């Protein structure tokens, strides 16, 4: 306990303690000028730990050394110091998400406020850090202190971002593949039956060509091959002609239907006009909604839309049919000329056997190449299809992964247990502090916002601080500490209370609170450090009382020159050996 009058320098002492732990410096110029460094002697795992934090000309400068286990290390930034101290204490700081969406880590400056209530504004909110740059900082720090998974882990977020962009890329690939597939599948019949038929005809053609090669009577074989080819051409031509005939019929039919629809549009117009005329003579039928023209209940515009929409369908169909007709006509022409050459070759007596042979081989080869080309297209199509299938499967996998990543933190039993426990403990400590006029219906949400019967700390304190908020903050921190101390291996076993506002708190309440805290700390191998101006808390054997030892102009001071040291000493030794 630090016990001294106002203005004797208690706060700088408490701040120096925090400073030695890596808290940002915030000293007045007088101290910066006269003090060189703050040295903290502590103990971790039974080994001595010495932290020396230099006090420079400005508060912003950072230099500290740690002596631990016979080794000295030095640090020039808060970040590296924090990391080293966490490591030394056996904590593994998680990668968290900053308020700007980037990566960040916990600092001493963000963690220590759980165990350190700064004089003044520290008593106005459940958590008050010098700077706030981590998303849901309070919740994250409690999670970190209690060894729980972070709420917003940077790794999870990063991989989520990666997975999401992967999903987008995958979708794009699928769309591209679909387009390729659609393009390739145009006009290709890739059914198994067609494939088999093509394969058979390939074999057949190859056999015929082979037959020509090995045949003795080359001329006879050639002419019979040609006749066979001719017959096949005829069949093809007939089939195409039939198709063409049907298509032409359909196109002609479309014209008729179109004319019919046009007629209907005209009827509709007439009907509408008649309706207009009739309704304008309201004298004819004065009954409202007489429904003489029930058929026109649906408006003219909509009926017109439906009818004209039919025409659009027709036009599209006839366009497609016409394109097909053109294609067929072209193909028929080709077939016709091919047939003609065959006929000429067969019929002309002058053509030699060799010529016939050449033509036969030529035509057979042509057909073979055509059939094989078709086969290649089909197999290409199949490949494309399986590629698309694989892409889609991969997309499903990515979606599953995203699902898995976004689910973390939802079923968070450990954290929920902690919230429940904190709720009970807070109520217990509220009773201890005799907090009146605040609902005991404490609720703690996922971001560790405390509400009391629906009211937040801010509304209870009506924007500033009141004795009630002070009590509630003390209760919350006692509850946090009690929950924290339950695990014997956790390193931060202390609570620093920098001058709890006595003027707003009944001394009796503070006394009972501190006594209970003391008991709890004793039972759990922890320390309580507080400073006080008026209330003199009774100290026992194991406690230390630190009184100002230097002579000041009006009253004894905590800091001073060696020469000003007060001669009489009811002064305890320096209270800086704790872990």
């Amino acid at each position: 306990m630090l016990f001294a009058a106002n203005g004797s320098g208690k706060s700088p002492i408490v701040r120096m303690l925090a400073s030695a732990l890596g808290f940002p410096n915030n000293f007045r110029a007088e101290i910066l000028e006269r003090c060189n460094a703050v040295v903290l002697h502590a103990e971790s795992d039974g080994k001595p730990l010495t932290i020396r934090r230099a006090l420079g000309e400005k508060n912003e400068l950072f230099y500290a050394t740690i002596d631990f286990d016979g080794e000295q290390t030095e640090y020039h930034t808060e970040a590296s110091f924090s990391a080293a101290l966490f490591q030394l204490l056996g904590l593994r700081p998680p990668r968290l998400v900053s308020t700007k969406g980037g990566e960040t880590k916990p600092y001493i400056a963000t963690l220590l406020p759980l165990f350190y209530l700064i004089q003044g504004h520290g008593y106005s909110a459940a958590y008050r850090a010098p700077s706030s740059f981590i998303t849901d900082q309070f919740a994250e720090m409690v999670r970190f202190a209690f060894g729980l998974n972070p709420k917003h882990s940077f790794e999870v977020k990063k991989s989520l971002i990666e997975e999401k962009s992967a999903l987008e890329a995958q979708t794009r690939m699928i769309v591209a593949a679909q387009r390729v597939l659609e393009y390739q599948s145009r006009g290709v019949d890739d059914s198994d039956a067609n494939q088999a038929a093509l394969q058979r005809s390939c074999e057949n053609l190859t056999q015929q060509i082979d037959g020509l090669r090995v045949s003795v009577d080359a001329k006879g074989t050639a002419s019979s091959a040609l006749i066979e080819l001719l017959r096949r051409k005829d069949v093809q031509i007939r089939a195409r002609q039939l198709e063409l005939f049907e298509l032409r019929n359909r196109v002609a039919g479309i014209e008729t239907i179109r004319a019919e629809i046009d007629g209907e549009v005209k009827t509709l117009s007439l009907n509408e006009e008649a309706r207009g005329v009739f309704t304008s003579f309201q004298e004819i039928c004065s009954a409202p909604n007489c429904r003489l023209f029930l058929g026109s209940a649906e408006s003219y515009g909509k009926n017109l839309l439906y009818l004209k929409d039919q025409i659009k369908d027709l036009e599209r169909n006839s366009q497609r049919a016409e394109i097909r007709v053109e294609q067929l006509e072209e193909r028929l022409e080709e077939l016709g000329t091919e047939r003609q050459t065959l006929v000429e070759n067969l019929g002309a007596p002058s053509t030699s056997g060799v010529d016939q042979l050449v033509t036969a081989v030529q035509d057979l080869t042509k057909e073979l190449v055509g059939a094989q080309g078709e086969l290649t297209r089909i197999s290409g199509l199949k490949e494309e299809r399986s590629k698309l299938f694989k892409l889609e499967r991969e997309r499903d996998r990515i979606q599953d992964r995203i699902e898995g990543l976004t689910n973390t933190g939802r079923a968070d039993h450990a954290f929920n247990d902690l919230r429940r426990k904190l709720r009970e403990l807070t109520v217990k400590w509220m009773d201890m502090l005799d907090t009146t006029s605040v609902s005991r219906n404490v609720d703690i949400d996922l971001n560790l916002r405390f509400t009391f019967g629906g009211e937040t700390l801010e509304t209870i304190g009506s924007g500033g601080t009141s004795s009630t908020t002070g009590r509630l903050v003390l209760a919350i921190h006692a509850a946090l500490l009690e929950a924290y101390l339950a695990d014997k291996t956790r390193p931060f076993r202390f609570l620093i209370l920098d001058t709890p506002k006595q003027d707003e708190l009944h001394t009796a309440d503070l006394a009972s609170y501190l006594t209970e805290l003391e008991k709890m700390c004793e039972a759990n191998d922890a320390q309580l450090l507080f400073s006080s101006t008026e209330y003199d808390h009774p100290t026992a054997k194991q406690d230390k009382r630190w009184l100002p030892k230097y002579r000041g102009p009006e009253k004894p001071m905590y800091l001073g020159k060696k020469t000003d040291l007060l001669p009489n000493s009811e002064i305890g030794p320096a209270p800086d050996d704790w872990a």
Partner: protein
Amino acid sequence: MDIIHDKAPRETVGRDTMMRFRMQFQAAAFAALEILSGKEVDRIYCDYHDDFVVRRTVAGVVEFHFFQVKTKGKANQQWDINEVFALKKTGTLNTAEKLEAIRSSIAGKLFLHTIEFGDQCRQVTVLSNVHFKDEVHNLVTDLAAGTSSKKYARQLIEKFAAIVSPDVSLSLEQVEAARRKLSLLPNVQYIGDTLEAFGVAAHSAIWKHSEIDLHQHEVERIARSLVMLVEEKSCAPISGLSKTGIDLATGVGLEDLLRVLSISTQVYLTLLEGGDSAAIKTASILQRKLKEAGTSDAMIEWASRAKVSWDVWMRNARHTFPDFTLNVLLEEIDKKCKTWLLGGGLLADLEKCIQELLESPAGKQFPALDIDLLFGALCAAIVRRATR
């Protein structure tokens, strides 16, 4: 002989009144077309508080613009101050009767809105098919400025508060704001005794907000439907209706306009968001729907062929089958289509629908129905639903 023509008729006011009303409806219908642009204007009230009222919502704030439609039979006539304001150019405004006369003039009634509705009244306008005399324009300008070189205008400005609000005293700002709100809209060409002028003026809006290519006479018919819509709204009885009831009964909103126009709500929204209007005008509803669902071109062609053959069958069937039987079938099809759409609209389910239709008593009445025709029927039902 022909004695009916020889004697002068006792009264012909009714004819004139009808025509005036028609012009008012045209003016309101034209104002309603602005709703389609999807910007500020969102509702037109017909014959409610005034001839028509345009409601604007600007950044969540609702404002009203009141219109008085005043027409004259001859285009070369002009409105003068006495007609619009009931203001005499000579003499002093000293009696209560004179003030009362101004209060119940065309402009006076409009000014009452500016007091009654305060900030919600954005503007009041006198709309006419003919011109206003310069003196009327000058008076409106002077009212906005608050000063004038004419004595009668100065008197009007002086007595303005007493005219528009005889019972309640107003603040200076209120009076000034009210004075500035009057405007004139002369020589409006889209109202006339026939619908032609209106049809021409509304042409571009109707054509733009149409899903199909329209002929001139079709545009005119739709323009007529628009005016009739306004007429309906103007005549609807409003006694005993709730606020929303009155909104629906007297107001023309987007949904009413779309009901009359040849465009489906879906397409209207697509176009509003900057969809390709040319693509929409060429592709039919069924094609677009199936394309969206990722159907292949061949399937789309088949479906549209099926729909065409259904339409053809239907065109004949309605002459050969009794109306009742046919309507039962159509209702059955529409019901099936609805359940199919609500069930997620999977093509595989469609087969079940068709089978059920074939076996239904309604379906059994028509021996010619087969799977292809019924598939076409369902396609047609989908399109019918989409045209709404």
